[in-house]
């Protein structure tokens, strides 16, 4: 096998970033449309996208709130999902370290996508270019698409007929599946999902999902056994 090129050409980078922006744009539009169709004020998805800028967490928060859950449960679910941004921050720390404002701005555009694009490059200046190109365009694209979704959601009255309510769990599932690669996490996710669904009829909205974290016990207990590894 021949050596991979150390750098990605500028045109390839722009093409790949555009495709990601388009894909996320459809997701963002869906988020905006469902939010207002579900009865949230127009500014909720718009402000949340500008300030939080994390698709998974925004979907989580919105679905808890739309299901009637308390804001505290919603924020807890979103915050838990965003804990993964901390290891991302350590990963790209070298890329944004030139001065204080690149650190502050770079932190806000640290997402699954921008980190993945940076990690693709072996050369540091190329990684820097990939990170800022992807993060910057994605920030713009995501926020524009959420606004477009809000406008569409306001215009379309019967979102159920278009099956828009299925896009929410579909996005969450598509985000979840690549993260559950090993057997132990699969068991934990399956157990957690079963617990959450079983408790939904009896617990206040938002809490079943948090109790699902009990499924994590399945990932921890084998490690307690001596020499336990996976």
């Amino acid at each position, binding site marked *: 096998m021949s050596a991979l090129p150390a750098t990605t050409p500028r045109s390839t980078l722009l093409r790949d970033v555009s495709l990601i922006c388009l894909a996320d744009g459809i997701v963002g539009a869906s988020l905006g449309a469902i939010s207002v169709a579900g009865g949230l004020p127009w500014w909720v998805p718009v402000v949340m996208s500008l300030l939080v800028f994390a698709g998974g967490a925004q979907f989580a928060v919105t679905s808890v709130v739309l299901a009637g859950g308390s804001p505290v449960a919603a924020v807890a679910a979103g915050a838990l999902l965003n804990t993964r941004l901390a290891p991302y921050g350590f990963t*790209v720390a070298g890329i944004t370290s030139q001065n204080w404002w690149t650190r502050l701005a770079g932190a806000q555009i640290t997402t699954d996508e921008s980190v993945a694009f940076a990690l693709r490059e072996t050369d540091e200046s190329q990684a820097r270019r990939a990170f800022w190109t992807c993060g910057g365009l994605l920030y713009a694209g995501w926020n524009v698409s959420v606004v477009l979704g809000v406008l569409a959601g306001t215009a379309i009255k019967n979102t159920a007929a278009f099956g828009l309510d299925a896009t929410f769990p579909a996005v969450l599932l598509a985000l979840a599946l690549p993260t559950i690669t090993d057997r132990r996490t699969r068991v934990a996710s399956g157990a957690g*999902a079963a617990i959450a669904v079983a408790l939904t009829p009896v617990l206040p909205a938002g809490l079943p999902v948090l109790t699902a974290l009990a499924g994590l016990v399945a990932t921890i207990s084998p490690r307690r056994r001596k020499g336990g590894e996976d």
Partner: protein
Amino acid sequence: MPLLAIVALAGISYAFRLAGPLLRGRVRLTKSADGLIAAATGVLLMSLAATQALTQGHGFAGWARPAGVAVAGLLAVRKAPFPVIVIAAAATTALLRLLGVS
């Protein structure tokens, strides 16, 4: 959804993002912490997906929605592009409802 909740989540998220650039060189995340975060993310997303797909309020959501989500899951496992997954889920559910399946 009060503005305060959005600002709180934004603050927490930003703190997670900024921790790395601020603490670089002084603190390292352990491998087990990394693993636990990854596992918690999977569990949370899966349980959100399951409850959103199957339930509405405190009851069953009907068959059309979980059917659309199941199609999305199949496409995701087969590594279909994101827009295809999202549109297929909506189309399946919409079609079933058009056929009278709620």
